[in-house]
Structures are given as structure tokens and as C-alpha cells.
């Protein structure tokens, strides 16, 4: 997902779940920050590099793809952007090596998303924001794995967008190109994706690179054949998934703020859907590269307050100026603690399942918090 959903939509969901305007801002800031907290940024503010929740393209270009390098990549991407759905799924006639990757395929409503939300209970708003990012991405990034793998994440030229033209539903073959400087052309169906690389562990085969930005567009409906699906076509309905992501975030945050006693999978906030369903669908279905303005307007209508735009530098000075011993009391410090806890939990769970692809976590899954 992109800034429109991780920042603005998360703000809306947080407010609807009962958090105040200021609390919602803290939550949505952290949710968006997950996409930006790289080692480069952490090094700049002299923060622990282990807390990285993403990797920049330049960092990935330099990343090693030996076992240690792959574990490092997988730890980050599986923990924050491609949370595995089922670490114990079975598939006949496959080697252990294949199954290690197959079991990292992301999807919603798995056991790990419940653990992610429960881990944030009683913790900081920043930790809640991280959990919401992870939860939302389980919907958008479903069917891709957070580890570089051609046999899991590759797609082929049988990739079709489903759109409406003159009131009729049509299928249009997607034309992919590798042109990072040009935005996707929605009108003519020209989209950017990662280059095909025959090497199994190439960084180009990480996540949904081969499908371009399709998973991140809320309006997109498309069908394709993922490499793992044994020639079965997957139909991805983003409008439906994004709506469920939003309402599930509301449910999760109601649990986190004490309104609900438990958080269970496959539960979506009905109240929000009944009251705002049409408005949500209108925003989600609108065919645009970024829906930030629409989500922002919705959020401001809900709270009656101004939702400031995301500023990556907002809390960096605070973190740098604070004494190191008390850094955990800063916004970034709380975010870092939450990130370390989330990464530790997911890495532990993957390791416990007998899968070595994420390595081992030297970080306790329960990290002390300073509110």
C-alpha cells in the first residue's frame, strides 16, 4: 500500500475506532513511517540499525543474496510488509527448500496478524501504527512473499487488468515496462514492474515487484498466474480487499483501545461499513494513482480537525537531541521499540516453524516500552 492508505486512511480508521485526533495522528504517522524507516535514515539519526522496517532501492542493490543476506532481507520484508499467512501450510511433492519460501506467502487473516495486533496491546501508539501497517499490507500484498524468490513471486505475460468501459467489464492485457522514472499510465495500461531475472534469489524477485504497483492501487482488479499457483489464475479484487482492510483496522484498533475484548480474524467493523460504506467505496474505487486527497478530506470531515501532511523529518531532531538513555521516550524511540518487537516476534515464529529463511532473532519479542 501507499501513503494514501497507510497515512490518511489509517488516520480515518483510528478516529473511527475511538482514538482522538492527536492519537490518530501518532498512529497514522507510525503506519506510514514503516515504509520509510531504512538503515540509511536510522544511521543518520544514530539509531539502532536493527530497527529498520524497510530497505531503500539503493540498499537493496547492494544487498548480498547469500544465506545471511537473504535472511536479512526476509526478516525486514516478512515482518512488516509481507506477513506470512500460514507458516505450516502443506503442499505435496515439494522440497523443504521450496516449502520454506512457499510458507512465507503473505495473506490476510492468518495467525501472525492476530499475534501482531495482540503484541501491540497495551503498548504505544507508535506500536499500534506499526501493527496497522502490517495488517493493511496483508490485504494488499497477498499472494506474494517477502523473500526474493523467482519460483514464488514471478508472474508472466498473462496479466490482465479488469476494467469498466462503456458500462461493460473488459479485460485488458497489461503492458509492463521497466521505467522507474515514468509514472504508471492508467489510461493506456502502461505499468512499471521489476526486470525479469532468471536468478532465483535476485532482488528483482522480492515481493510484488514483478506485478508492479498493482497491489498498491485500491481501484485495481486484475488477474494473473503467480509462479507458485501451478497454473491457476488468481483474481485480485483490490476494492473489496481494501474495504476489508479498512474495516478490519477499525476492529483491531477498537480492540487495542479497549472497546473490544478480543481481536479475531475475519471480523470487520459493521458499524463503520453501514455508516460510511458508500463513501469508502467511492474513494477506493476511484481510478487514480494516489488517493491521498480524498482520504484526507474524509478524515478532516470525520474529526473536524486538520490532518497535516506527512513529514519524514518531523521527529528526527527530537530523537537526535534527546539523551540516548531517554531516547525511548521520543516518538522515534517508541517507534523503534515497536519495530524491534514486531521483527523479533515474526522472526521467532518463522524460526519456530523450522524455516531458516528469516534467521534467528537476537531481539526479545517483548521489548520494554516507555509511554
Amino acid at each position, binding site marked *: 500500500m501507499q501513503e494514501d492508505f497507510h497515512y490518511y486512511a489509517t488516520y480515518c480508521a483510528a478516529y473511527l475506532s475511538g482514538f482522538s485526533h492527536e492519537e490518530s495522528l501518532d498512529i497514522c504517522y507510525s503506519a506510514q513511517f514503516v515504509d520509510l524507516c531504512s538503515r540509511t535514515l536510522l544511521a543518520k539519526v544514530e539509531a539502532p540499525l536493527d530497527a529498520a522496517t524497510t530497505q531503500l532501492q539503493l540498499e537493496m542493490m547492494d544487498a548480498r543474496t547469500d544465506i545471511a543476506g537473504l535472511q536479512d532481507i526476509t526478516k525486514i520484508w516478512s515482518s512488516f510488509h509481507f506477513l506470512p499467512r500460514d507458516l505450516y501450510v502443506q503442499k505435496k511433492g515439494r522440497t523443504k527448500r521450496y516449502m520454506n519460501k512457499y510458507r512465507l506467502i503473505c495473506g490476510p487473516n492468518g495467525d501472525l496478524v492476530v499475534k501482531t495486533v495482540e503484541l501491540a496491546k497495551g503498548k504505544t501508539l507508535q506500536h499500534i501504527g506499526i501493527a496497522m501497517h502490517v495488517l493493511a499490507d496483508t490485504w494488499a500484498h497477498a499472494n506474494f512473499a517477502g523473500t526474493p524468490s523467482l519460483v514464488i513471486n514471478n508472474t508472466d505475460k498473462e496479466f490482465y487488468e479488469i476494467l469498466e468501459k462503456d458500462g461493460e467489464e473488459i479485460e485488458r492485457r497489461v503492458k509492463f515496462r521497466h521505467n522507474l522514472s515514468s509514472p504508471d499510465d492508467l489510461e493506456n495500461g502502461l505499468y512499471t514492474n521489476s526486470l525479469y531475472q532468471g536468478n532465483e534469489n535476485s532482488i528483482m524477485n522480492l515481493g510484488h515487484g514483478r506485478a508492479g504497483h498493482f497491489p498498491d492501487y485500491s481501484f485495481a482488479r486484475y*488477474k494473473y*498466474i503467480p509462479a507458485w499457483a*501451478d*497454473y*491457476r*489464475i488468481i*483474481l485480485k479484487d483490490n476494492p473489496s480487499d481494501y474495504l476489508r482492510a479498512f474495516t478490519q483496522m477499525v476492529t483491531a484498533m477498537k480492540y487495542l483501545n479497549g472497546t473490544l475484548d478480543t481481536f479475531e480474524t475475519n471480523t470487520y467493523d459493521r458499524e463503520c461499513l453501514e455508516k460510511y460504506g458508500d463513501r469508502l467505496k467511492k474513494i477506493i474505487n476511484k481510478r487514480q494513482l494516489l488517493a491521498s486527497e480524498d482520504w484526507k478530506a474524509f478524515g478532516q470531515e470525520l474529526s473536524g480537525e486538520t490532518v497535516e501532511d506527512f513529514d519524514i523529518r518531523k521527529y528526527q531532531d527530537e530523537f537526535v537531541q534527546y539523551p540516548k538513555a531517554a531516547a525511548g521516550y521520543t516518538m522515534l524511540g517508541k517507534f523503534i521499540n515497536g519495530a524491534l518487537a514486531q521483527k523479533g516476534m515474526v522472526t521467532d515464529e518463522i524460526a519456530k516453524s523450522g524455516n531458516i529463511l528469516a534467521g534467528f532473532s537476537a531481539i526479545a519479542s517483548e521489548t520494554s516500552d516507555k509511554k
Partner: protein
Amino acid sequence: MNDENSVALRRYCKSIELNGWAIMLSAIWTSVKSLIPVFMGQKSLDELLGIAGDIEMQDMRGVLIFFEILYVILIILFHWAIGNGAIKYSKGSPKKFGFLFGAILLFLVNAISVPFYFISLERLEDIDSTVATFIVDVTMIIILLDLIISTIKVASIRKTITAEK
């Protein structure tokens, strides 16, 4: 979309397409392998043409080289025709089985000729190139067999789907 026949059809069509490409690329190998002894220094060009020591035939050298080149071109075109036909068939070109007969012929030629590599081996020093050629040709046999079986299966599935409609 994901019923058994559709999934099987996609699988076998993909197999045919990949095998088609492999056959087209193997044209280069098939045309070059006859010249390997010359490249490896095991034979001279005259020995390859069968005119070594034959003074009279030396005058025919130009003609023989011409026919050798013609042979290479025909080999390439033959492989290209099979591969291209397979690729078109995999994309839905109906009932054009000409490539299948070519594939069967090529399969038989390869299968029969493979044992003769070792039977006709004159010097043990040539074993390395013989083994390499053997491995590549066995791979080709497997590709052709897979192509033939996949084509038969696709034809059968398409017939079933048409009958159901």
C-alpha cells in the same frame, strides 16, 4: 477459469511453448556440432569433408563446402519450423500439426543416432567432446518427447472442452 481442464491446458501449452523455443535454439547446436571436431583440432576440414588425402576430390572442395553450408541452413530452417509451429500451436493456432511430424522425425533421428557416438568413437582422447554431445542430444530427446506428449494432451483437452461447449 481454474477447473481441471483449464489448468492442465495452461500447463501443457506452456510446456509446448518452452520446448518450441528450446528446439529453435538447438538449431544452432545441431548445425555446429558437426564442426566441433574441426574446432577442437581433432579433425581437419578435409577430413571432415571426407576428402583428406584424395587429390582428385580436392578440386571439389568448394562444392562440398557449399553443400555443407546448405545442410546447416536446412537444419536451422527445419528446427525453426518445428519450434515456431509449436509456439503458434501453444497460443491457440488450431489444428496445425505439421510441427508434430517434424518433431517425431527429429526425435527418431536423435534417438537412433545417440548410441553411434560411442560405437564410432575412434580415439579415447575424443571422449570428452563425445560425452558433451551425448548429454546435449539426450536433453534434446527429452525436450522432443515432452513436446510430443504435451501436444497430444493439448489436442485431447481442447477436444474435450469443445465437446462440452
